[in-house]
């Protein structure tokens, strides 16, 4: 593109391709939301045009309503935050009756994050959602904040493969397995998810951490341990996406500390087909849209026509 062509955003958009494809589903751009940081989209719809997003990824949904953990549930740490929300959610029925119809009023893809305490519960939620008008299911086997389920499934390659193939056999939607970074070798875990039949993987979930209140001489979080997110974890996340991308052929959704477009581009170049914006939403409710605009600007500036040309371009 010639320099004198760079005018408004509208003009830019016509000349570049932001579309990406995962498991046969076409997303209008590679940007989604990180589960649990965007509710079901409703709260942020005052700030962001949800139809601008490649997809909305919802808060974890379980078979019945979950209470979550006692408060305090969050603590700020330098360049990041710890959370131990404990997957509070209204349950799959309320999700289907209330949140899904709301999301369907927008022109965006819907990825539903699924949680359970047992393998059976994951399958029950997947069964219910398979009959609904959603695009993909993201199976959260990496939440560090619940006693049963969550991370317990995500740290052992054998169990990752088992739960993946079990869930896959129940699902009539493509599935994404969301991986935990709290493992020794992310490549092995990524391969296990692929072997189990995952259509894609997403990473990273939060890193376990702790903060101590020295005045009160106690833990800051009621749960003692929480998951670290935000810019502080980005280098680890980029490294893990790179290692996973080298280990598997299935597409990757990368996340962890993306605050602006330049962060998102690192993930894409490391091998992510899509990226998710999480903690940044709390700091800037318009973060998702700004990341999309920033990627477009980068492509125009660097004369890149198709975002797919950037995926895994660093080898």
């Amino acid at each position: 593109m010639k320099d004198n062509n760079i005018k408004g955003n509208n003009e830019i958009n016509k000349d570049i391709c932001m579309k990406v494809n995962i498991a046969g589903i076409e997303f209008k751009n590679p940007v989604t939301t990180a589960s649990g940081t965007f509710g079901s989209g409703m709260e942020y719809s005052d700030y962001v045009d949800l139809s601008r997003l490649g997809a909305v990824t919802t808060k974890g949904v379980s078979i019945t309503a979950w209470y979550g953990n006692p408060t305090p549930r969050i603590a700020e740490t330098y360049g990041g935050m710890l959370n131990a929300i404990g997957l509070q959610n209204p349950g799959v029925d309320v999700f289907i009756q209330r949140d899904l119809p709301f999301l369907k009023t927008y022109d965006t893809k819907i990825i539903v994050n699924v949680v359970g305490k047992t393998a059976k519960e994951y399958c029950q939620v997947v069964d219910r959602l398979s009959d609904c008008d959603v695009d993909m299911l993201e199976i959260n086997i990496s939440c560090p904040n619940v006693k049963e389920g969550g991370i317990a499934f995500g740290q052992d390659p054998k169990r990752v493969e088992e739960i993946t193939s079990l869930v896959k056999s129940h699902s009539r939607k493509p599935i994404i397995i969301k991986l935990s970074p709290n493992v020794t070798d992310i490549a092995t875990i990524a391969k296990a998810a692929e072997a189990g039949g995952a259509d894609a993987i997403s990473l990273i979930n939060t890193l376990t951490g702790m903060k101590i209140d020295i005045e009160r001489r106690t833990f800051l979080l009621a749960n003692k341990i929480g998951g670290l997110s935000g810019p502080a974890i980005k280098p680890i996340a980029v490294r893990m996406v790179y290692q996973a991308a080298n280990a598997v052929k299935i597409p990757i959704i990368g996340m962890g500390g993306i605050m602006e477009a330049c962060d998102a581009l690192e993930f894409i170049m490391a091998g992510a087909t899509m990226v998710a914006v999480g903690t940044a939403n709390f700091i800037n409710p318009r973060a998702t849209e700004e990341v999309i605009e920033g990627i477009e600007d980068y492509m125009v500036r660097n004369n890149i026509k198709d975002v797919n040309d950037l995926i895994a371009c660093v080898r």
Partner: protein
Amino acid sequence: MSVAIKKSIKVLQNIRIEEGVYDLRLEAGDMAMDASPGQFISLYCDDGGRLLPRPISICEIDKETGNIRLVYRVVGNGTREFAGLKQGELIDCIGPLGKGFTLEGKKALIIGGGIGIPPLLELAKQLKCEKSIVLGFRDVTFLDKDFESYGKVYISTEDGSVGTKGNVIDAIKANNLEADIIYACGPTPMLKGVKEYAGSNNIRAQLSLEERMACGIGACLACVCKSTEVDHHTNVNNKRICKEGPVFYADDIVL
């Protein structure tokens, strides 16, 4: 309800009014137009390492000028950074957030404890009924003079240096104060005492709560409190302080 906006706003004044307590006036513009007593604004730190905005209650609203007054105590790195703000500087804010007080009743008792006192000032100003104002402090008092134009002010201090020795409930009893509605903001132990007092005297009470917040707009579920009934949004017995609150009817929540 109006939508909160995020923007950079100008500091008109930021002065120390008591040891560690600051009075911050902001040129909030449309943010002020939409604000009501009991709502809060979240202020962003300039240091990018301190990611989360700090929730601070709105102390006074001037709809004519679009100015907002906040009164805050320095307790950590974020508020310490705010204490250094100078006139003319810009600060990023989001607000107004949450649901404030519902103005009601014929005879009100306004009860504030420590740094929970500021949001009650705008309430006292807007509330047109008969009212008594009870302010509890550890030792040194602040903001009490500002309340005097809006009602009779009763003070309690833990050391007895000013007013009734003891807590706000002691001051209410010592002065035989009566009411058909209570409005309260302060530390949780105080709110527990107020809830109990209101319950045993059959008085309706609105309490303003606080909790650590991330999003401030109801999305992350960091800031919940326990509720007596299953909440319509969460579908469990808890409510979001940043969204359904920070002001709740005492009967609706468990402290």
